[in-house]
C-alpha cells in the first residue's frame, strides 16, 4: 500500500455548482498533509467526503488500499474535526469524550484523562463546555478526533480561534502525535505560514480544483531565496553560469533564470555574462513567501 488515502476524481456538485471538481489527493502514512485554500475553495467539502460525512457526486477514494464499500469499513480508523467542534454544551469535556469513547467501544481506563492531557485540558474539571473559550472548544474537538487511536485524523481549520500560544501548543501536539504514534493528519487552513510550520505535504485547492500537490521540500525550494536573472540569451547564460561552477539554477522562461546558490555573487555573474557577450536585462535577489506563492498560483490577491 503506497498511499494511506487517495482520491480518484472526487467531485461534489450542489445544483450546477461544482464545490469540488475531480480532485486527486495522495496521502502517505505518516504525512501531515496541509490542504491550502481560501474560504469557499472546497476544503471542508473534500474533508467531509473523506470523513464519510458527505457522499461524493462523482469519483471515489481509496483508504488503506481499499475502495468503494470496502473502504467504508475502515472509516472507524478516521478521526474528524470538521468546521466548529460539535460538543454538548451542558456537559463537561470529560463527559463529551466519554460519549465518543462509548460509541467507539473504547474501554481502556484513563483514556479520557490522557486525551485531555494531550490537548492541554487536564485542568478543566467539571466545567461545562458552554463556559469554554473558543480555543478550549477547539482543543476538545481535537481530543474527540483522537478517540480510539485513529490512523488518520482530519482537522478542518483546527487553529481557528486559538491565541498564538494555543496555536504553538496545538502544533506541538500534532507533531508529537505524528512522530510518536505515526498518526497521519490532513489539516486544512488558510493560515499558510502556520501550516507551513507543520505540514510535510501540501495540496493547494482553488475553486474546487486541486491546483498542485507538493512535498514540503518542493515548496521550500519554490519559496526559497534566489537570484532572478533576466537576459537576452538564456542558453548562452546557462553555459556561462556552469562555467562559473553554478549548477543550482532553473530556466523559468525564455528570458528568466532562477539561481539558487552564491546569492551574494550577483556582481560577478553580471560581469561574467558581459564578458561573454550576454546582456543582463535585470538581476534581483527574490524571496517568495508561501503566501505570495499561493497568491500567484491561485490568481492573485483579488481572489483571497
Amino acid at each position, binding site marked *: 500500500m503506497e498511499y494511506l488515502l487517495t482520491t480518484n476524481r472526487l467531485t461534489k456538485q450542489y445544483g450546477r455548482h461544482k464545490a469540488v471538481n475531480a480532485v486527486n489527493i495522495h496521502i502517505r502514512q505518516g504525512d501531515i498533509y496541509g490542504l491550502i485554500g481560501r474560504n469557499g475553495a472546497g476544503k471542508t467539502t473534500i474533508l*467531509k467526503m473523506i*470523513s*464519510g*460525512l*458527505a*457522499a461524493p457526486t462523482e469519483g471515489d477514494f481509496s483508504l488503506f488500499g481499499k475502495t468503494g*464499500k470496502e473502504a*467504508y*469499513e475502515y*472509516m*472507524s480508523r*478516521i*478521526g*474528524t474535526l*470538521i*468546521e*466548529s*467542534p*460539535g*460538543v*454538548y*454544551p*451542558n*456537559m463537561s469535556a470529560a*463527559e*463529551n469524550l*466519554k*460519549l*465518543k469513547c*462509548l*460509541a*467507539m*467501544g473504547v474501554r481502556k481506563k484513563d483514556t479520557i484523562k490522557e486525551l485531555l492531557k494531550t490537548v492541554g485540558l487536564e485542568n478543566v474539571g467539571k466545567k461545562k463546555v458552554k463556559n469554554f473559550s473558543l480555543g478550549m472548544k477547539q482543543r476538545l474537538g481535537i481530543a*474527540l*478526533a483522537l478517540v*480510539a487511536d485513529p490512523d488518520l485524523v482530519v482537522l478542518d481549520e483546527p487553529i481557528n480561534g486559538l491565541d498564538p500560544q494555543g496555536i504553538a501548543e496545538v502544533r506541538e501536539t500534532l507533531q508529537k502525535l505524528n512522530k510518536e504514534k505515526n498518526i497521519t493528519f490532513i489539516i486544512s487552513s488558510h493560515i499558510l505560514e502556520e501550516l507551513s510550520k507543520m505540514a510535510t505535504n501540501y495540496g493547494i485547492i482553488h475553486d474546487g480544483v486541486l491546483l498542485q500537490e507538493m512535498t514540503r521540500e518542493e515548496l521550500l525550494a519554490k519559496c526559497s531565496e534566489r537570484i532572478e536573472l533576466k537576459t537576452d540569451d538564456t542558453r548562452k547564460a546557462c553555459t556561462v553560469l556552469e562555467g562559473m561552477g553554478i549548477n543550482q539554477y532553473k530556466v523559468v522562461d525564455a528570458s528568466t533564470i532562477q539561481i539558487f546558490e552564491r546569492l551574494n555573487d550577483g556582481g560577478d555573474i553580471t560581469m561574467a555574462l558581459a564578458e561573454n557577450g550576454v546582456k543582463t536585462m535585470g538581476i534581483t535577489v527574490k524571496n517568495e513567501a508561501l503566501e505570495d506563492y499561493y497568491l500567484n498560483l491561485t490568481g492573485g490577491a483579488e481572489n483571497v
Partner: protein
Amino acid sequence: MFNLIKMDTHRLVHSTSTWITLLFTVVLAVFSVVMTNVYIQMAKEDPSSLAVEPTEEIQLGIYVDANPEWVTGNIEIGDIISTEMKSGVLAIIVVVFAAIFSNAEQKNGYIKNIAGQFPRRGNLIISKFAAIAIQIFWMMIVFSLITVITGFALWGSRFYLGSFMPILKFLGTQYLLHLGFAALIMFFSIFTRSTAFSMTAGILICTGFAIPIYSIINKLIADIKPSWDFNVGNYMLDRNITQISLAVTSDIMVRGVVVGIVFSVISVLFAMLIIKKRDIR
C-alpha cells in the same frame, strides 16, 4: 450498534432535558389528579355539572373526564391512571422530550464526531430510538406512580387498586402509542433538523389540531365510497391515545398496539433512510 445504544443511554442519563421532562411528568401528574379532584368537589356541590350531554363533537385541547361514581363511591386506581393518561398531558411531555433529545446531536454538531465512523449510519437512529424508549418507559412509570401517590393523598381508602391485569394491558398499549408518537417526532426532527418545528407539530397534534384534517379525509372517503364506514382517526396515534382506556374492548386495544408499532417502525425506517442518504451538516 450496541456501543451506540450505550452512548445514547449515557447521554440520556446525563442530559438536563431528561431530568427536566421527568420533573414535569411529576408536576403534571400531580396537577392532573388535583384537577380531577377539583372536578369531583365541584360535582359534589353541584351534581348537574357532571351531567354530560351526548355529543358527537370532538373536543380540542387537553381535558379530563370524570366518572359520576367518583363523587360518592370508590375510585379505582386504574380508572384514574387511564383518565389522566388519555387526556394527552403525558403525550405532550413525550413530544417535548423526543424533539429535544433526537435533534440535540444535529443541533450542536456532535453527530459530526461519530457519523462518519459508522458506515451503517442508520444505527444512529436505532440507538436514539432505544434511548427514547427507555425514557418513555420511565416517564410512564413515574406518571403512574405519582398519580397513585397523589390519589392516595387526596382520597385515602376510597382509592383502591382493583384488578391489575387490565392496568398492565392499558399501560402497555399506551406505552406503544406514546413510543410511536415519539418516533414520529424523532422523524420530524431528523427530517426538518428543527426542534421548534417538530415540537410545535407534536403539541398541536396532541391538542387535537389534526382532527379537522381527519374530518376532511373522512369526508373525502365517504364521498368516494359512501358504504364504507371509515374513520382515519382510528388509525392515528393521537386519537388512539385519547380513545383507549381501561374500559375499551380488546379489539380497540389491539388496534392501538398495531398503530403504535406501525408508526414506530415506519418513522424509524424513514428517519434511518434520511440520515443514510443525507450529508451531515
